[in-house]
C-alpha cells in the first residue's frame, strides 16, 4: 500500500545570499508532513518564509539544507527533466492569478498540456471539462482582462488541475479577493478536495481561511515552524504567542480593556471567561449554574462557533452572588472537562 504521506520536509533550511557578505536565512530547520487528501494550511506574516516553503515542494526553490520529498522522490535531487515531469502532478495557484493576458481563457487552461501528445480536440475537451468544474465554461473564448478577480482565480484553478495533479499549492490564493469572493473560492477548493481527493496546501496570512477549510496547520514565524497540528486542537489550545495572536484575529472573545472599564463591578460580582477546550458534549452551563448555585450569570460577550463540528469559542460573563456561591460555581466550572475558566483579576484574565 502506498504511504499516505505525500510531502515531507526533513530539516529543511533555505538561505538567500543577498550579496557576498550578507545572507538571509528564510527557512530554518523546517520539518513537516502533509498527508494525502488533507487540506494543509501554512500561516504566517509576510516575510515569514511561507512562499519559499511552498515553492520547495515543486522545486521552484531549492532547499539549501535538508530534504524535501514528494511521495518517494527527493525533489532537490531530481534532474531538470524529472522535475518538469513531477510538476505535472503539482498544481499551483497564485495571489495575482498569473493568467497570460494575450491568451484566451481556453488557451490559458490548455497551456500545461499544449506540448503534450494530446490532439487539439482532446485538449479542447479537457479544457471544457475543467472550465465546467470551476463553473466558467461560457468564458472559454474570452480574454482574462474581461474577468473579475474571482473568475481569474477560477481559471487559474482550472489550469492547475488540467494535468490531474495529486496536490494543489495555493500561494495566498485568496489574499487579493474580497471576503465574499474568498468564500466562494474556498468553497470551490473544498469541493475539489472532497470530490477529487486532491491534497491542498494553502499558504495564507488570514486565520479565517485556515478556520474555514484547513484540516491541519503549521504556524511559521521568521522561517521557523513554531507550532503545528490539527486545526481544532491548535485553535482551542494554542501554545505559541504568534498562534494566539492569529487566533485572536478570528475571535470576538477578546474583551478590550475599554469595554471592561465600562463594566462597573460591584461587590459580589466576578467577571470570568469560559473557553471551550475540547469537543465533549456541550452542556447548558449557564442554566445549570444559575439553577444549581442560584447565581445570576450575565453574558457580556459570547462567541461560540462550530469548527469541524466541534464547539469553539466561549463566553465572558459576570457572576453575581454571594462570595460562597461564586466560589462554588467556579469550582463546578473548573471541574468541567470541556471548558477552561479564567477569572478576571487586576486588569486581566488569569
Amino acid at each position: 500500500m502506498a504511504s499516505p504521506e505525500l510531502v515531507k520536509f526533513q530539516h529543511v533550511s533555505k538561505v538567500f545570499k543577498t550579496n557576498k557578505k550578507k545572507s538571509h536565512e528564510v527557512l530554518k530547520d523546517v520539518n513537516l508532513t502533509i498527508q494525502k487528501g488533507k487540506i494543509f494550511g501554512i500561516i504566517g506574516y509576510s516575510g515569514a518564509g511561507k512562499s519559499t516553503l511552498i515553492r520547495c515542494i515543486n522545486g521552484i526553490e531549492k532547499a539549501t539544507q535538508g530534504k524535501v520529498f514528494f511521495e518517494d522522490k527527493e525533489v532537490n535531487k531530481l534532474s531538470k527533466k524529472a522535475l518538469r515531469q513531477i510538476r505535472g502532478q503539482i498544481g499551483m495557484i497564485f495571489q495575482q492569478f498569473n493568467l497570460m493576458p494575450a491568451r484566451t481563457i481556453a488557451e490559458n487552461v490548455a497551456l500545461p498540456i499544449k506540448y503534450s501528445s494530446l490532439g487539439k480536440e482532446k485538449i479542447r475537451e479537457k479544457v471544457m471539462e475543467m472550465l465546467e468544474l470551476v463553473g466558467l465554461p461560457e468564458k472559454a473564448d474570452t480574454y482574462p482582462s474581461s474577468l473579475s478577480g474571482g473568475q481569474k482565480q477560477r481559471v487559474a484553478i482550472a489550469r492547475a488541475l488540467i494535468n490531474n495533479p495529486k496536490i494543489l499549492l495555493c500561494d495566498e490564493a485568496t489574499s487579493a479577493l474580497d471576503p465574499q469572493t474568498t468564500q466562494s473560492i474556498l468553497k470551490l477548493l473544498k469541493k475539489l478536495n472532497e470530490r477529487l481527493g486532491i491534497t491542498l496546501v494553502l499558504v495564507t496570512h488570514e486565520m479565517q481561511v485556515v478556520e474555514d477549510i484547513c484540516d491541519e496547520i503549521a504556524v511559521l514565524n521568521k522561517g521557523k515552524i513554531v507550532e503545528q497540528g490539527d486545526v481544532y486542537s491548535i485553535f482551542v489550545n494554542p501554545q505559541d504567542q504568534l498562534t494566539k495572536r492569529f487566533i485572536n484575529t478570528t475571535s470576538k472573545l477578546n474583551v478590550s480593556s475599554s469595554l471592561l472599564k465600562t463594566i462597573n463591578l460591584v461587590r459580589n460580582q466576578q467577571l470570568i471567561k469560559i473557553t471551550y477546550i475540547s469537543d465533549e458534549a456541550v452542556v447548558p452551563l449557564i442554566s445549570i449554574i444559575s439553577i444549581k448555585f442560584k447565581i445570576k450569570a450575565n453574558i457580556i460577550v459570547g462567541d461560540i462557533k462550530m469548527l469541524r463540528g466541534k464547539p469553539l469559542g466561549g463566553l465572558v460573563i459576570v457572576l453575581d452572588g454571594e462570595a460562597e456561591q461564586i466560589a462554588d460555581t467556579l469550582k463546578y466550572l473548573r471541574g468541567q472537562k470541556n471548558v477552561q475558566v479564567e477569572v478576571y483579576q487586576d486588569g486581566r484574565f488569569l
Partner: protein
Amino acid sequence: MDAFFSKLFPNVASNLDVFNAAIIQTLQMVVISGIISFLLSLTFGILIVVTKGGGILANKIVWNVLDKIINLFRSIPFIILIAALIPVTRIISGTAIGVKGTIFPLIIGITPFFTRQIESALNETDDGLIETGEVIGLTPWQLVWSVYLHESISSISRVTTITLVSLIGLTAIVGVVGGGGLGDFAIQYGYQQNQFDATIACIIVLLILVSIVQIIGTFISKKATH
C-alpha cells in the same frame, strides 16, 4: 497633374528616374536590413534576457559577452562605423558601395539598438508569468516561445516600429558614402546643387514611409493587446 508637379518640383521632375530609383533603393535597404536585423535582434534579445542573473538559463559568460559587444557597437557613431566596417563589408558583400554595400553596415549599426529594444520589451513580461510557466513544467524554450514571445507581441511590434524609423534615418546617412537612396539624392541634388525642391521631395517621401511604418506598427500592437 504632371504640370503641377513639374512646377512645384522642377528639379525632381527632370530627374524623375533617378528619384524613383532612390525611393526603390531606400525601400530595399530598409526591408532587407530590417528583416535580417529583426531576426538577429530577436535572437540576441532572447539570449540576453534568458542568460541574465536569475534568468531561466542564467549564464554569466554569455550575458557578459553579449552585453559588452552591444555596448561597444552602440557607442560608435554610425557614420564612423560605416567607414570602420569597409574592409569587412567588402569581404562579406563583395563591395562597399551601392545598396549591396550598405546592408552589412546597416545591420551592424541597427542591431545593437534593436537588441536593447527587444530586451526591454521582453523584460516587461511579468515575473509571475515566467514562474507560472516553470510551475506548469514548460521547458526553457517552450517558455521563451509560449510566454516571453507570445506575451510580448504587442511590445515587440512597438519597439520594432521605433527601430524601423531609426533605420530609415540610417539609410539616409549611409547614402552619403555612396549607398544611394533618398539620402544620397537629397545630398547630391538638394545640397550640392542647391536644388531645394529635391530636398523637400525626399522629406515628403520619407515622411510617408515613416507614417506607413508607424500605422502598421500601431495596428499590430493594438491587435495583440487584449
